[in-house]
C-alpha cells in the first residue's frame, strides 16, 4: 500500500479489509437481447420496447459470475443491485437463481432520460448503506455503451476503481486485479478495499441457474430502495436528442439468390474483381 487513503463517509470501513466473508455488490442492467430487431419509437428518442425481449447486460453477467466465484472462494454475500422499470424484476430473479443472496431494486422508469451522473448517483446511494468490500459491474452496457457508470459510481462513493478487469485476487491488504490494456497488453493493479471493478466479458464461463436455484430465488429478499434514500433528481448535463438509423458508409453490393448462387457470385468477384483467387 502506498499509504492511507481518503475513505468515504458513505462506503468506507473503518477497519482494515477482510479477505474472508466478503460482501460484494454486483450492479446489473437489463438490456434488449442482442439479436433484437430494433424499431425507433414515435417520439424518435428511444426504441419501441413493446415487442422486445430483455436480458442481463452481457458484461454484467460476467461481473455476477466473478462475484459468485469470489464468494465461493472467500465466503460472504453477493447482493445484486439493479435500476430499471418493472421488467427488470426478471433479470433480478435470474441473478438470484444463479446464486446471488439478495437484491436491491431501484424502481426507475426514467432510465433513458438520465445521464451517467444521474444514474450513478442513484446506484451509489443505494450501495452506500451496504458498506460492501467490492462493487462489481460490467465494463459497459450493450444498449447505451457509455462504459462509465461503474467509474462514476466509484467517484461518487469516494473509492478507488479499476476498469476492464480480467482477473480478481483478494489479498489481506486489498484486491489485486489484472487489467486489459490495448493491443494485447495487460497489467496487474493493486488497491485497497472497498473498491469498484468493471469486468470484461468472457473472463470465465457463465453458470446456468439450477432448478434448485430457481426455486430458492423465490424466497430471497428483493429490497425496493425507497425514493427518500435516493439523491434528489438534478437536471441532466447531457441529453439524448434523437435516435436514428445510421447512414451506410459504403454501398454494399448484396449478392442475392440461393446459397450456392450467392456463393458462386462471390467466388467470381474474388477471382475477377478483387483477384485474390
Amino acid at each position, binding site marked *: *500500500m502506498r*499509504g*492511507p*487513503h*481518503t475513505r468515504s463517509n458513505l462506503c468506507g470501513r473503518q477497519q482494515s479489509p477482510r479477505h474472508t466473508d466478503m460482501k460484494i455488490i454486483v450492479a446489473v442492467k437489463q438490456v*434488449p437481447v*442482442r439479436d*433484437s*430487431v*430494433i424499431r*425507433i419509437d414515435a417520439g424518435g428518442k428511444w*426504441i419501441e420496447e413493446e415487442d422486445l425481449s430483455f436480458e442481463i447486460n452481457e458484461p454484467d453477467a460476467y461481473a455476477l459470475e466473478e462475484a459468485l466465484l469470489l464468494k465461493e472462494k472467500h465466503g460472504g454475500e453477493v447482493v445484486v443491485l439493479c435500476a430499471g422499470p418493472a421488467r427488470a424484476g426478471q433479470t433480478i430473479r435470474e441473478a438470484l437463481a444463479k446464486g446471488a443472496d439478495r437484491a436491491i431494486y431501484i424502481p426507475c422508469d426514467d432510465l433513458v432520460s438520465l445521464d*451517467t*451522473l444521474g444514474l450513478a448517483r442513484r446506484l451509489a446511494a443505494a450501495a452506500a448503506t451496504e458498506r460492501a468490500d467490492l462493487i462489481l459491474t460490467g465494463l459497459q452496457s*450493450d*444498449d447505451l*455503451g457509455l462504459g*462509465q457508470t461503474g*467509474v*462514476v459510481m466509484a467517484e461518487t462513493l469516494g473509492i*478507488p*476503481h479499476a*476498469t*476492464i478487469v480480467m482477473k480478481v485476487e483478494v489479498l489481506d491488504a486489498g484486491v489485486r486485479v489484472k487489467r486489459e*490494456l*490495448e*493491443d*494485447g*497488453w*495487460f*497489467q496487474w*493493479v*493493486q*488497491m485497497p478495499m472497498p473498491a469498484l471493478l468493471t469486468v470484461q*466479458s*468472457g473472463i470465465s464461463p457463465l453458470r446456468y441457474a439450477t432448478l434448485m436455484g430457481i426455486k430458492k430465488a423465490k424466497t430471497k429478499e428483493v429490497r425496493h430502495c425507497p425514493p427518500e434514500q435516493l439523491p434528489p433528481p438534478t437536471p441532466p*448535463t*447531457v441529453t439524448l*436528442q434523437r*435516435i*436514428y*438509423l*445510421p447512414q*451506410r*458508409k*459504403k454501398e*454494399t*453490393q448484396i*449478392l442475392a439468390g440461393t*446459397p450456392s448462387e*450467392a*456463393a*458462386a457470385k*462471390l*467466388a467470381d468477384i*474474388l*477471382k475477377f474483381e*478483387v483477384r*485474390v*483467387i
Partner: protein
Amino acid sequence: MSGVLVILEYRDGWNRMSWEALAAAQQIAAQTSQPLMAAVAGGKLNDAALELADKPLARAFAVRHALLDEYTADGFVAAFVQLIAKVDPQLVLFPHTYQVRDFAPRLAARFGQSLIADVIAINLESGRPVFVRQLLQGKLNADYIHTDTGPCFASLQAGAFRADALTCGSCTIEEFVPHIETSQIRTQPGERFRESAQTVDLAAANLIVSVGRGIKEETNIPIVEELAATLGAELAASRPICDNGWLPMERQVGSSGQTVSPKVYIAVGISGAIQHLVGMKGSKAVVAINKDENAPIFEVADYGIVGDLFEVVPALTAAVRKARGA
C-alpha cells in the same frame, strides 16, 4: 470559459488516436472561433513536448509530475482537475482509449459533468456541438447535446476522425506542475506485460476469413477452417470466439486484439460490434456473410450475402474450389 482543450496520450510514444482527437478539435475550434489547446501528462515529457511544439495550438501544456510517470486514474484525475480549473475550457476532448475510459468519466464527474463517450461525429447546429454516438452495438445512432453551463467532456472513437486533417503550426509549451500527494494515489500499478509471443501475424495477411458468434458451437469451426484453407487465407475471429477458447487469442481481431488491413476480409457470422470494426475497417474489401440484414457489419461491407452461414460457407468453399479449377 472558452477554448477547446484536447487531452493527448503519451507513454514512450504517442497514442496515434491523440492526433485524431486533435484534428477533430481543430475543426470545432475553428468553426466556433475558439482557441485550440492541448495537454499531455506524464513524468518524462521532453520528447513529447518537442513534438507538440509544431502543432497549431494557442496553448500547449506539459503536465509534469513524478507521480504521473506510471498511469493511475487517481493521479491523472488529480492533475487534470487542476489544469482544467486553471485553463477553464468550454470543451474538453479525449481520444477514446482504454486509458481515457479508465479516468475521464471520473474527471468529468469532478466537474459535475457526464462524459459523452465514444463519439463518432461532431456536428454544429446553431453554433452548438451535437455529438453523435452509436447505440445497441452500432444498430442506431444518437445525437447528444451538452445541457449544462459547466465544461463539456467528450471522447472520440478510434478511426472516426482523420488525423491527416490536422495542419502544422507552432506553439510554446507551458510547463504545468500539479500538486499531487503520494497518499492520493490509491492504486498500485504493476509492469505492463503481454501474455505470449504472437506467432500469427494477421496484420501481414492478404486474405482473412474471420468468424464470429454466428458459428454457434465450437464443433462448427471446421467449416470456416475449410473455407480459409481453400482460399489460402488466415483464420481470424471476433472476441467471443477467442474468449470461449474455440480459437487462440492471437487470432482475435478488434480493439483488444490485432488490427488488420488485408486485401479481402470475409466476416462470417460477425455482427460488427464497434470493438471488432475498429480492428478491420482498414481492409481494402470487406465481405459479410450474416443472417441478419440489419447487422452493423453490412455498414462497412462492400459485398454481402444475407443468409444462413451453415449453407453459404460450404457453398462458397465449393465455389472457390471450382473457380480455382477453372
